[in-house]
């Protein structure tokens, strides 16, 4: 049974900003579904349409069996939502935060007591129930934040960028926790992230979203296999200046049309070459470039990552997306979303 089914789900913000543009996907029960894309791709907007915080401009979404437009109240009962911002009350204790949410979900006092105890153990916060949240560390707050979305044992939980701003250790901790949630407790998880590694580690299936559209969907392995065997990354120069661009163009033309090259994808300062076997391709690449008098500063071989997948479909790396010229539009969108 599908926990989420969307059809041509679209959100247009004032100013004709198509934040989400005709998105179709299904999420099966017990699955971790990853929504991967750069900041401003439309991930949060998609979540907010599914959890009833904003109304779709057109299209439909059926969440836990209920239409988000016709029956938002039923949807809210069945879902948990963990936003990107940690939405916990700092002046309250952990227990007070959880208890309030227990009441919001219409649990009776005894059930709330029992669930609070269970959940604090589950998120590894036992002993901190009666401490003020203002004394919690960032990782503890995030775990409490996730716990608040779980108090009513929802069928489905939305996690919007669950590890943004956390240190690497805490991140791994949260990952284990999310994994257990789905695999041990059977909660369906819809997760957005702009971290390739996170989607790769956690998600059973991934949709890659860019500029409001899904550009690829499948299991992490399927997506990577679509690229081919190995990725050889050439770095001819250090910065993305004019001379560097020229190098990249020359290198690309030197290699184009060669039978061992499955595809190529340049960025500002690198050239990704997709090949069947990296080890045997390197000597060929070196020879071809030397013939053209192109010097390469460094060269690496790797298995394709989701980063390469993103690059293949969009011509950009996710890393390069952060803090670029699109930031203004994103901020604009972010403000409209609030």
């Amino acid at each position: 049974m599908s926990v989420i089914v969307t059809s041509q789900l679209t959100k247009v913000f004032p100013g004709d900003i198509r934040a989400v543009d005709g998105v179709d996907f299904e999420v099966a029960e017990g699955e971790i579904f990853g929504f991967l894309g750069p900041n401003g791709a439309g991930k949060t907007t998609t979540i907010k349409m599914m959890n009833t915080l904003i109304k779709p401009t057109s299209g439909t979404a059926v969440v836990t069996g209920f239409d988000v437009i016709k029956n938002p109240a039923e949807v809210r009962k069945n879902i948990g939502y963990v936003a990107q911002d940690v939405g916990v009350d700092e002046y309250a204790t952990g227990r007070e935060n959880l208890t309030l949410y227990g009441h919001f979900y219409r649990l009776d006092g005894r059930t709330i007591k029992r669930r609070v105890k269970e959940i604090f153990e589950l998120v590894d916060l036992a002993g901190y129930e009666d401490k003020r949240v203002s004394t919690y560390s960032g990782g503890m707050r995030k775990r409490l934040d996730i716990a608040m979305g779980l108090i009513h044992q929802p069928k489905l939980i939305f996690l919007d960028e669950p590890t943004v701003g956390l240190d690497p250790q805490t991140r791994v901790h949260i990952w284990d926790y999310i994994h257990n949630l789905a695999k041990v407790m059977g909660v369906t998880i819809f997760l957005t992230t702009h971290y390739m590694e996170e989607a790769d580690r956690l998600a059973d299936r991934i949709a890659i979203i860019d500029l409001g559209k899904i550009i690829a969907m499948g299991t992490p392995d399927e997506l990577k296999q679509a690229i081919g065997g190995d990725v050889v990354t050439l770095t001819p120069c250090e910065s993305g200046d004019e001379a560097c661009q020229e190098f990249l163009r020359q290198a690309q033309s030197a290699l184009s049309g060669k039978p061992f090259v499955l595809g190529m994808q340049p960025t500002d300062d690198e050239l990704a070459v997709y090949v069947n076997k990296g080890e045997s391709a390197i000597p060929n690449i070196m020879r071809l470039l030397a013939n053209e008098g192109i010097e390469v500063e460094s060269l690496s071989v790797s298995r394709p990552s989701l980063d390469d997948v993103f690059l293949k479909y969009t011509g950009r790396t996710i890393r390069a997306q952060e803090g670029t010229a699109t930031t203004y539009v994103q901020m604009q969108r972010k403000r409209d979303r609030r």
Partner: protein
Amino acid sequence: MNLLNDIRFQILRHLRTLFRIRVWIFINLVQSLIWLVLFTQVFDSLGASFAQLPGLENASYLQFFAPGVVVLTVLFGSAWAGMGLLQDIDMGVLSKMLATPVTRVSIISSRVIASMVMLVIQALIIFAIAVVMGVNIVTGVPGVLFAIVLISLLGLGFAAFSNGLALLFKRPEPLMGVINFVALPAVFLSSTMMPPELLPGWLDTVRYFNPVDYGVVGVRDLVLHGYIWSDLWRSTLVLGAWATAGIAFGTLMLRSRAE
């Protein structure tokens, strides 16, 4: 039933928050005390000539101004009520809450009622201080209770409008701007500081459009003059309408601006 429970649990949350901010309690208590002492010192020079004015029946400025301080405290306290909601919006608490089945109306009404509870406590303390300083409340305890009803309605309206504006702007700057723009003129465009007899003619007209004046007139009647029902009925009705309008505005903003 759900609605009442939602309101109850959120009121507890808001009151808990306020009581945990110790500075806040301290400042609020000291503030009213300072107003009572400082203002009466400033206007003390009016002395006997002030008391001879018509309608004052030999009251001191302290006696005249004490009801004003109560109203001022309620006005300023409730006008800023939206800041707490802004904090919730900013920290992501509100949107997280809106994704739960919580009744929408309870979000605003619980905040407004919690503000009222705090302000009523403060008002009672000011009344007590005023009595200690020598103010004679002619209607006694029932009068004070009536006064509490009037200022609750006044504060309810301001707190609800403030919360509504917080949702409308979603930023502290414009909200602060509006409050500063409205609050102080609302005081001076009323008979809070000066008896109506001393106000210029145009101001005496303008004050009829100012909810603060209805609060001041009502509370002052109860403290100085007794039950003047013509004033008291008008104040109750106008302030009731004011509070209703505020709640309607706040709820409307929550429904339309929650996106």
